[in-house]
């Protein structure tokens, strides 16, 4: 049969075949009918089809038999519980399988709710339908949805299947990095690239980034030409790639969620129909039944015929969802209702769940509108707008939390003692929680989520420069607390001042270049939770409340055991002293999340940015190694 190929020859052949070379082309290139090839036709055939189907080429000579055998397995129903995933595990090379297993194990040890949020945000980021997860893991869709959205407990083995899918799916991210059609599919869990699997492709879904672009274009012009549509296609694909943290030139990796002109065309057509329908609804309800449109409390504007309040809903939906100034979307609504809309979106500017209220009233308005007319069915999209409205309420609530996750890449590396403290923090009613790092807009935070996921798998240590030490505050003594009772701003300042005093006698830059790796981080809540703090802090530091005004003098970095920090009295001098040092905080090794804390601290006004709504809580990071590194 086939002369035994040396392993190198096998490798090279495999590389050639994988690069898209067809067998016939290869034979022709060889310039001869290749009698030895004819003999090898059979196995090579299978090998090639395996190549395109699997990509595990390194095993080609030995693997011919194996892959042929396992090809049958790939046609197996994904409905089976764990076996298909496990089988695919065998199909991988041992190192990759072991690596994946290790990651899954790590995830299983973590707090299930936290991992669930991670998985959910990944699904949202990549617009993956739940159906795909359900098909490959065999989990129950309702159970899965409840677990991801509400934290309904899920047994370990099922969670293992979910995490395995998740880890495997993240390979899709690697596949994003190939050109269209290049490289092929490694295994099914990508879900959207194997048409032979019962002809099922994931249904296309508009991502929030694309929708934003489209709505903006829609208000400019309701009927774009083909060129404009093509421009929009490029823009949307670029935005979707960016949302996934991928180079925009790899748009083909979007797979089933790739935006095309046809889809853009359909989107505009649907929007136009939707608007016409809502116009009709408004006409009917305005002149119709006494229940009338009755705009909700957040929409004081009367519904002029040309402007049913419901027309605001998609823009409001997106205003709520993005928390960004939707002034451009507000412009979609002509001036008569412009001002109330602007006030609503103005209220949404700070990403805080206080923005939930407008959406709640919106919901009631919209519901009234749609139910008021017993007429023809509304276009599907208005219903989906409704549905997504409902979702934005919990969604928005989650978003600050997701952003918390995003801006705290070190969170997942926290040891077992920590999650207990983090739980209550996250479930804090959003109005009283402020997370530093939310200064960035939505679009920027999403890629961070992705990197958070990758930082988990690689357990990358989070680097903080030492300037962050000044902000890390051990529990304050009660006398201190009474001082700061006046305003939360002062509380922050006091917190920030005292450890800073440690360095106050040497404010040069040199002091701050000494940077240590701080893999462990801890969240600290505000001064009102001192008891919790006290139980959390593992470092041994002794604080004395020093009423002396001179914070500059007599502060010595302790030589040995404990670090003594003098708490200065709060005078403006102390505050001002804080600022220049913070200005020095620009260190290239600081991760982006920690930088955000200091970017706005250039002036006292900057500090007020930290507390835009005068919230009393500031969450900062503390390094458990601070003691050692400060010694």
């Amino acid at each position, binding site marked *: 049969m086939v002369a035994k190929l040396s*392993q*190198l020859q*096998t*490798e*090279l052949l*495999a*590389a*050639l075949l*994988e*690069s898209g070379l067809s067998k016939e082309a290869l034979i022709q290139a060889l310039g001869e009918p290749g009698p030895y090839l004819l003999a090898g036709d059979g196995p090579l055939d299978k090998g090639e089809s395996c190549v395109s189907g699997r*990509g*595990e*080429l*390194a095993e080609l000579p030995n693997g011919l038999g194996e892959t042929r055998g396992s090809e049958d397995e790939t046609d197996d129903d994904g409905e089976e519980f764990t076996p298909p995933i496990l089988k695919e595990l065998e199909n991988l*090379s041992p*190192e*990759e399988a072991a690596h994946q297993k290790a990651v899954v194990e790590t995830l299983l040890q973590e707090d299930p709710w936290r991992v669930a949020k991670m998985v959910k945000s990944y699904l949202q980021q990549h617009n993956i339908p739940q159906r795909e997860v359900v098909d490959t893991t065999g989990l129950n869709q309702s159970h899965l949805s409840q677990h991801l959205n509400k934290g309904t407990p899920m047994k370990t083995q099922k969670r293992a299947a979910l995490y395995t899918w998740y880890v495997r799916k993240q*390979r899709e*991210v*690697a*596949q*994003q*990095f*190939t*050109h269209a059609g*290049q*490289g092929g599919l*490694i295994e099914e869990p990508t879900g959207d690239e194997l048409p032979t699997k019962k002809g099922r492709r994931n249904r296309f879904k508009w991502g929030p980034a694309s929708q934003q672009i489209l709505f903006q274009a829609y208000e400019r012009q309701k009927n774009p030409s083909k060129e404009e549509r093509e421009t929009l296609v490029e823009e949307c694909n670029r935005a979707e790639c*960016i949302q996934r*943290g*991928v*180079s925009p*030139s*790899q748009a083909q990796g979007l797979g089933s969620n790739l935006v095309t002109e046809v889809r853009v065309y359909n989107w505009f057509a649907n929007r136009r129909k939707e608007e016409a329908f809502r116009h009709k609804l408004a006409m009917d309800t305005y002149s119709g039944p006494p229940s009338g449109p009755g705009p909700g409390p957040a929409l004081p504007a009367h519904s002029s015929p040309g402007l049913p309040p419901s027309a605001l809903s998609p823009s409001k939906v997106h205003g709520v969802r993005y928390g960004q100034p939707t002034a451009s979307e507000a412009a979609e609504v002509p001036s008569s209702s412009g001002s109330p809309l602007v006030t609503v979106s103005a209220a949404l500017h700070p990403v805080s769940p206080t923005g939930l209220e407008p959406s709640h009233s919106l919901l009631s308005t919209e519901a009234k509108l749609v139910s008021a007319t017993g007429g023809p069915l509304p276009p599907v999209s208005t219903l989906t707008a409704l549905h997504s409205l409902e979702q934005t309420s919990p969604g928005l609530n989650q978003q600050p939390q997701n952003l918390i996750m995003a801006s705290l890449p070190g969170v997942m590396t926290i040891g077992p003692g920590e999650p207990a403290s983090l739980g209550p923090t996250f479930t804090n009613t959003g109005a009283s929680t402020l997370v530093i790092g939310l200064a960035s807009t939505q679009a920027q935070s999403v*890629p*961070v989520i*992705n*990197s958070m996921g*990758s*930082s988990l*798998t*690689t357990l*990358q240590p989070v680097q903080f420069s030492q300037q962050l030490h000044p902000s890390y505050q051990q529990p304050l003594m009660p006398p201190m607390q009474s001082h700061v009772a006046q305003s939360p701003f002062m509380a922050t300042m006091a917190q920030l001042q005292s450890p800073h005093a440690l360095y106050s006698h040497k404010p040069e830059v040199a002091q701050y270049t000494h940077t240590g790796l701080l893999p462990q981080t801890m969240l600290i809540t505000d001064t009102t939770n001192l008891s919790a703090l006290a139980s959390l802090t593992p470092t041994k530091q002794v604080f004395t409340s020093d009423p002396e005004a001179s914070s500059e003098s007599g502060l010595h970095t302790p030589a040995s055991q404990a670090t003594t920090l003098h708490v200065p009295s709060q005078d403006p001098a102390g505050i001002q002293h804080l600022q220049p040092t913070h200005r020095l905080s620009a260190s290239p090794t600081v991760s*982006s999340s920690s930088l955000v804390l200091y970017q706005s601290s250039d002036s006292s006004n900057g500090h007020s940015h930290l507390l835009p709504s005068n919230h009393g809580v500031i969450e900062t990071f503390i390094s458990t190694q601070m003691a050692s590194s400060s010694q």
Partner: protein
Amino acid sequence: AGKAHRLSAEERDQLLPNLRAVGWNELEGRDAIFKQFHFKDFNRAFGFMTRVALQAEKLDHHPEWFNVYNKVHITLSTHECAGLSERDINLASFIEQVATSMS
């Protein structure tokens, strides 16, 4: 071939974290990214290099690399802009994909 313009700071912030997470590092004194791979043996290493080479030809963007037995050191930079460009990101991504599929 993709765009050969030097990546701006925002683009780097978007694109480089993914690569950094898998082990690519920026070089000192040079606007380039670098990673070291090692494989089980020379055959695997060279098979990897062959795949990368074929793709590099296709992209018309070639890596700077060094190979000794089972180790491959790759440096990516774009000559036209004397720094990092989208081409480097693309090739790095492809290299990652090949490396994970191989080992």
